[in-house]
């Protein structure tokens, strides 16, 4: 019994020792399996996307295909001239990892590329860095020097930028493409307004590749081609634009003015032939321009109190409403008193009995007030709106201002209507003003100002843009009467210096005060001279507006804007071969 007990005890001990080892082994296997399972889980599930991406990168080529940005053209006779195009430049970049003596390389690179030495040293400092941009838009000289440099790890790469080969020409109209810290896109002008159409749609390519990185031509391929942007052909003629830019620059410099704007429009269609502002900038080097306000287009964004040039609109309203005729007579007492204010003629003279034509010839404030009174406030406000004031013209440019005719909302405040009758107290943009003169020139229709002549789609399809009539504003007879009255202004009135020998020209001067910003009243000694008109009277082809801001040597528009108008109109009539209708002596 005792031996038997001892034996069974031994066996028990033996079994428990053996079981421990098995359990240990099982635990080891289990732990190993758990570790492998965990590792597999982390590789296949947690890091699935990362490894999938690595694998795909090894086996596939993915490439985003960038569309080519559409180009912008000016009219050039019967052809076109590129105003905004895409140009390939070279960029210098470094792979610091591949550069052996980084400090020496930095010194040499900075001297060639005219970069700050410390900046380049800093860029090349990281020995694991694979890519550092050194400089964009390299010159030919820089390219050749970099090629001769022969430093491994310094390379050139092509990159496309927007380029404006005509320099400053039509700069504020075309705008430019620039970076807003996220992407390159149209920032101002047509480049911004037409961004979506010009940019196009990116495409992509996905293709399997072999171990050597070569495309496997028989393998599956996903290819979505990029859709290039559309090209725009403008209604602006490059020679007209250039000549008018020249005239405006000379005028501004001659009179020591701060700035100026000239617009030329085809009277019947509303097509813009030139949109000129001075001073301007070179859109290819916009970053060098210190005054960012120059990027704006004052022709459409800068509303101003235009002054007496508005009297033609007041008179058109009076005639169209049947309240006055060109030879209707009123008595000018030299001033009008209203609501405690005394409104005088600009020359502070009294003219006595005057016809409506003489009101325009002598630019009488009292005469404009007389017409407004005859028409009545409500009708005057309605007509003003119908002429397009207080609303956007719809031109294809960003930042267009509506102007401000809010003073015409309070129908009981006569004083505001009286001042509006001669162009004070309401603001208009140069584009609105020239468009309203085109109404008189073309027989009474308000046209939508047109800047785009045609769109050319990537496939070659051409979409021609037709002129668009917004509404009829005045009767044809009214327009004809007004044309003759405005002709008389140029022949007998303040607009004599706007005349063009051999042609009948109609137009009106306006010398406006400049409202103080943020407070009531007008700036002392600052004026804006304007002249708006058209020619030839019997079959008006062109409407032109000249606006000169703050000329220093002369006060009145007849000495600043009117002569510039004459030069512009003369050029237009000759350039477009409009035959003279009148005899004239040289």
């Amino acid at each position: 019994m005792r031996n038997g007990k001892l034996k069974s005890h031994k066996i028990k001990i033996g079994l428990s020792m053996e079981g421990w080892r098995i359990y240990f082994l099982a635990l080891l296997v289990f732990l190993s399996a758990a570790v492998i399972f965990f590792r597999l889980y982390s590789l296949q599930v947690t890091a699935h996307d990362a490894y999938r991406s690595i694998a795909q990168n090894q086996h596939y080529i993915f490439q985003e295909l960038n569309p080519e940005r559409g180009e912008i053209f000016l009219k050039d006779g019967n052809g076109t001239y590129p105003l905004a195009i895409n140009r390939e430049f070279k960029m210098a970049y470094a792979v610091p990892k591949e550069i052996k003596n980084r400090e020496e390389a930095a010194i040499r690179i900075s001297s060639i590329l005219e970069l700050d030495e410390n900046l380049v040293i800093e860029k090349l400092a990281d020995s694991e860095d694979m890519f550092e941009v050194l400089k964009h838009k390299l010159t030919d000289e820089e390219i050749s020097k970099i090629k001769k440099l022969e430093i491994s790890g310094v390379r050139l790469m092509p990159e496309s930028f927007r380029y404006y080969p005509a320099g400053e020409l039509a700069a504020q109209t075309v705008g430019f493409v620039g970076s807003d810290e996220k992407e390159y896109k149209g920032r101002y002008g047509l480049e911004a307004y037409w961004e979506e159409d010009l940019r196009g749609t990116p495409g992509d390519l996905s293709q399997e590749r072999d171990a050597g990185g070569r495309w496997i031509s028989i393998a599956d391929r996903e290819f979505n081609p990029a859709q290039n942007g559309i090209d725009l052909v403008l209604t602006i003629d490059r020679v007209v634009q250039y000549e008018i830019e020249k005239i405006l620059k000379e005028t501004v410099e001659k009179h020591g003015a701060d700035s100026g704007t000239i617009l030329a429009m085809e009277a019947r269609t509303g097509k813009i032939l030139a949109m000129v502002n001075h001073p301007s900038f070179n859109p290819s080097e916009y970053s060098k321009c210190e005054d960012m306000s120059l990027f704006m287009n004052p022709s459409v964004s800068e509303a101003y109190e235009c002054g007496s040039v508005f009297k033609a609109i007041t008179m058109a309203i009076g005639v169209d409403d049947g309240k006055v005729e060109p030879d209707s007579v009123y008595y000018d007492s030299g001033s009008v008193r209203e609501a405690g204010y005394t409104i005088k003629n600009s020359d502070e003279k009294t003219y006595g009995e005057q016809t409506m034509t003489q009101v325009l010839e002598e630019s009488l404030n009292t005469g404009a007030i007389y017409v407004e009174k005859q028409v009545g406030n409500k009708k005057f406000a309605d007509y003003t709106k119908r002429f397009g004031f207080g609303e956007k013209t719809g031109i294809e440019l960003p930042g267009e201002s509506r102007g401000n005719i809010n003073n015409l909302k309070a129908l009981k405040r006569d004083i505001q209507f009286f001042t509006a009758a001669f162009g004070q107290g309401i603001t208009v943009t140069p584009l609105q003003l020239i468009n309203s003169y085109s109404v008189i020139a073309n027989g009474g229709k308000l046209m939508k100002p047109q800047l785009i002549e045609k769109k050319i789609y990537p496939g070659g399809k051409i979409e021609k843009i037709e002129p668009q009539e917004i509404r009829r504003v005045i009767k044809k007879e009214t327009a004809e009467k007004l044309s003759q009255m405005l002709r008389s202004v140029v022949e007998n009135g303040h607009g004599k210096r706007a005349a063009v020998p051999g042609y009948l020209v109609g137009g009106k001067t306006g010398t406006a005060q400049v409202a103080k910003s943020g407070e009531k009243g007008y700036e002392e000694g600052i004026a804006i001279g304007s002249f708006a008109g058209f020619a030839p009277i019997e079959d008006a082809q062109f409407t032109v507006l000249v606006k000169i801001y703050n000329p220093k040597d002369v006060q009145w528009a007849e000495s600043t804007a009117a002569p510039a108008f004459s030069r512009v109109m003369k050029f237009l009539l000759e350039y477009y071969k409009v035959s003279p209708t009148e005899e004239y002596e040289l």
Partner: protein
Amino acid sequence: MARNKVVAGGNYCRWRRKKQKTKNKTITGSINTSFVMAVFIFLSGLFYLYSINNNAIKGCQVRRAEKELTEQKKENEQLRIQEAELNSLYRLKKESEGLNMSELKEIVYIKESGPIALR
């Protein structure tokens, strides 16, 4: 060469051409399939090599032509830009000043009232 034999008669003998035994032999048996397959594979191989080589040459030519086309397009684009720059009216104005050319101040139209002689 056909052999002759001597034919002896009663009092003569002559040579007579030995009659040739003609046998109509027909070749029978089966064509070795493996051999045919080998020939076929060999020819196919040759054709394949030729095609591959030909394709490779064509591919190379196409690539070269495409490269040339791209370069031509680039050059064309550069020339277009250069033309636009040279045609820039601001540039022309600057160049003309350098050449001491004077600007046209006035265009005079003459009225034709009879025969005009020009020289």
